[in-house]
C-alpha cells in the first residue's frame, strides 16, 4: 500500500467532508405529530437527529404539507381546529376552522382546499386555506376518518368507520355520488398516482380493498398472512403508493410490519419488520426512503426503498401519529 503523507490524509479528509456537505445539500426534514406529547418532532432526514420538538395544540394527529412546502397543516383534535405551522420559523402562525374533533385531513392537488374529517358529527368539512374559512360541510357515514384526494382533482374519498363504507365525493359538486362497502372499520383511503384506483384499508376487517374508480367496484381485497402472527393482529391502516404506481406500502398496525405490494399482481412481495403499532408512512422527496410512525413503541423506522430493508429506528415523541417529509 502506498505511503500517504499526513497532508495527503488531511486533503482526503477534507474532500470527504466536502462530498458529505454536497450530499446534505439535498437534505430534507421529517415532521412527526406526537399525539401524547402535543408536539411536532422535527428530524433531519439524513442524520436522523432530532432537531426540534415544536409545541402545538392538544392531541395533534393528521398533518399535511402545503403545496409550497412552507407550512404544515396540523389537526389538533382536542382544540377543535387546525393549526398552521410555519416551517421556517417553527411557529404556529394561525388556525383554520375545521369542525369538531378533526382527526385526519387531506390537501387538494391545487393546494387551496383542505378536506377534514369530523368524527363527532359525521361531516367532511372543506376549508379554504387562503380565505381561512369553511366552504361547505358534507354529511357522510358514521365516524368519518380516511380522506383521499385524487391527483386529477376529481374525487375525494372519505371512509366511515362504523358504516364500513368508502364514500365518493365528486369535487365539482361536493356531493356524495357513490358508496362502496368495504371490510370492517375502514381507516385510510389512498389514490394511485394515475387516479384510476383508490386503496382503502380496513383495520378490523384485516384487508385492503382496491377499488376501480371508474366502475366503483372492488377489484380485489388484499389479505395478509404473516407466519407466527395471529390474523386479528394484522390491522392495516396507512397506505402509500410509489410515484410510478408500481409498489404500494401498507402499515399493518399491531403486526408491527409494513407490507410491500406489487400493484400489477396485487400480491404481497415482502414484509418489513418495523416498530409497534405502525400506522402511517411518508416518502423522502428523492423516494429512496420510507418513514413509518410506530405508535406504541414511540419511534420511527426508516426503510431503504432500494434494498427494501429497514435501516434504522429512532425515537420520536410519544404516540407518534402522522408523518410528512418536506424538501
Amino acid at each position, binding site marked *: 500500500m502506498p505511503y500517504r503523507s499526513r497532508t495527503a490524509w488531511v486533503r482526503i479528509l477534507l474532500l470527504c467532508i466536502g462530498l458529505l456537505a454536497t450530499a446534505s445539500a439535498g437534505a430534507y426534514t421529517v415532521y412527526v405529530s406526537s399525539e401524547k406529547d402535543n408536539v411536532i418532532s422535527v428530524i433531519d432526514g439524513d442524520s436522523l437527529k432530532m432537531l426540534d420538538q415544536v409545541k402545538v395544540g392538544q392531541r395533534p394527529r393528521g398533518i399535511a404539507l402545503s403545496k409550497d412546502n412552507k407550512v404544515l397543516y396540523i389537526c389538533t383534535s382536542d382544540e377543535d381546529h387546525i393549526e398552521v405551522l410555519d416551517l421556517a420559523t417553527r411557529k404556529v402562525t394561525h388556525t383554520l376552522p375545521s369542525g369538531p*374533533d378533526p382527526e385526519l385531513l387531506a390537501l387538494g392537488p391545487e393546494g387551496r382546499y383542505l378536506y377534514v374529517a369530523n*368524527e*363527532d358529527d*359525521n361531516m367532511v368539512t372543506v376549508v379554504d386555506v387562503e380565505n381561512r*374559512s*369553511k366552504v*361547505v*360541510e*358534507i*354529511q*357522510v*357515514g*358514521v*365516524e368519518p376518518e380516511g380522506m383521499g384526494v385524487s391527483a386529477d382533482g376529481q374525487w375525494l374519498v372519505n371512509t*366511515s*368507520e*362504523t*358504516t*364500513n*363504507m368508502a364514500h365518493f365525493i365528486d369535487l365539482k359538486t*361536493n*356531493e*356524495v*355520488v*357513490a*358508496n*362502496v*362497502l368495504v*371490510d*370492517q*372499520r375502514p381507516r385510510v383511503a389512498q389514490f394511485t398516482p394515475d387516479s384510476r384506483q383508490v386503496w382503502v384499508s380496513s*383495520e*378490523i*376487517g*384485516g384487508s385492503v380493498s382496491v377499488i376501480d374508480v371508474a*366502475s*366503483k*367496484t372492488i377489484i380485489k381485497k388484499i389479505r395478509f398472512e404473516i407466519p407466527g402472527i*395471529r390474523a*386479528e*393482529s394484522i390491522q392495516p391502516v396507512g397506505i402509500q403508493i410509489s410515484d410510478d404506481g408500481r409498489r404500494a406500502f401498507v402499515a399493518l398496525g399491531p403486526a408491527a410490519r409494513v407490507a410491500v405490494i406489487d400493484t400489477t399482481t396485487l400480491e404481497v412481495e415482502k414484509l418489513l419488520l418495523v416498530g409497534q403499532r405502525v400506522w402511517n408512512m411518508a416518502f423522502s422527496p428523492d423516494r429512496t426512503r420510507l418513514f413509518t410512525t410506530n405508535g406504541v413503541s414511540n419511534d420511527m423506522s426508516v426503510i431503504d426503498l432500494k434494498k427494501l430493508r429497514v435501516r434504522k429506528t429512532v425515537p420520536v415523541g410519544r404516540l407518534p401519529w402522522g408523518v410528512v417529509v418536506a424538501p
Partner: protein
Amino acid sequence: MQMRIWLALVLAGLPLAAQSMTLEIGLLSREADESLPLTSLEPRIDDNAIAGAEQGIRDNNTTGRFTGQSFSLTPVVLTTGEAPSDAFRAMYAEGTRLFLLNLPAADLLELADLPEAADSLLFNVGAADDSLRVDACRENLLHSAPSRAMRADALAQYLAWKRWTRWFLVVGRDPADRAYAEALGRAAKRFGGKIVERKEWTFDAGARRTDSGHFSEQQAVNAFTQVDDYDILLVADEADRFGEYLSYRSYRPRPVGGTQGLVATAWSGVFEQWGATQFQRRFNAETGRWMTPLDYAAWLAVRSIGESATRTDSADPQTLRRHMLSPEFKLAAFKGVPVTYRDWNGQLRQPLLIVSRRILVSVSPQEGFLHQFSPLDTLGYDRPEVRCGQ
C-alpha cells in the same frame, strides 16, 4: 358560511341491493328492579338495554341508508306476572323473527324452545349463567353478554399478572353470588389463584342513611375480615348489597375486587381506547347518560344483525345465524380486535375491561396467556369443555 349538503341517493353502479328490506327486532325485558341505587351518584336507569339497542339501530341505519335496509326496534317491558311467551308470540305474530332478550336463564330456555322460536334468532343480552354456554345451549340462542366464567377468567388473568395469587373470597347468600364464586373457583385453578379463605356474608345490608351508621359497619367489616393474610379480597355480591362496604374497612390493607372494587366487565363509561371516545359521546349525546354493560350487549346484538344483514343482503334468521357463526363474520366493537361468535355455543368472544369506578385498569386477555386458536378463548368455556353437541 356553512351549508349542509345532503347525500345523493344511491345511484347505479352500486353493487348492492336496491330493494328496500326492513328488519324488525324485538327486545323483551322484565320490569327494572324498584330498589334504591346504592349511591345517589348513580342515577336510576329506566331504559337499560333499550338505549343500547336503539344506538345499534341508529348505527345500522346509517349503513342501511346506502344498502336499502332499514332496522327498527320494538321494546317490550314485561310487568311482574306477565309471561314472556305471551309477549314473544304476539311479536312473532306481527312478523318479528329477530329477538333480543334481557331475561333470566329460565325464561330464555322457555322461549328458545317455543315452536315459534324454531325459525327465529334469539340473543341473550343479560344472563350470565354458565349453564347456558355449557350444557343448556340452544341453536337459535346466541349470547352477546359475557358469561360469569368469562368475567372471572378475565379478572383472574389480571391477578395472575399482578401475582396477587392469594384470594380471600367473600360470598353473598344469593344463588347468583354462589354461581360467581364457583366461576372464581374455576378461574383460580386455570390461572394459578389460590382461595386461601372463604366466608359467607350473613349480615344485613349496610346502614348507610342512618346517623352514625358507619360506626357499626366499620366494626362489622373489620371483625369479619380478620383472617390470615391474602393478596386481594374477592367479593361475590351480584345484587350490590354489601360488597361496596368492604373497601377500606378490611382488617388488612388489601384491595377489593370481584363484583365491586376491581371489576371485569364488557363495558364501562370510563373506557376510551380503540376509538371508543366517539362511541361513548354519541350515546351520551342521545341519552344523557353513559352506556352500561347491558346497553353494550344489546348494541352488540343489534350490530351483529346489521353486519350480517349487510354482508348477506338478507333478513332471514337462518341465513344471518349461519353467517354469524362462520369465519366470515367480524364485528368492529371498539375492543381493538374483531369480535366473533364461538361456533360451539354461540357465545360472542371479546376482550373484557378491568375497571375501577373512575378509570380503566387493564384489558384481558392478558399478554402471555396462549391459545391454539384465539387468545380470546382463554376467557370462558372452550370447545372441548362444553357439552352442547354443536
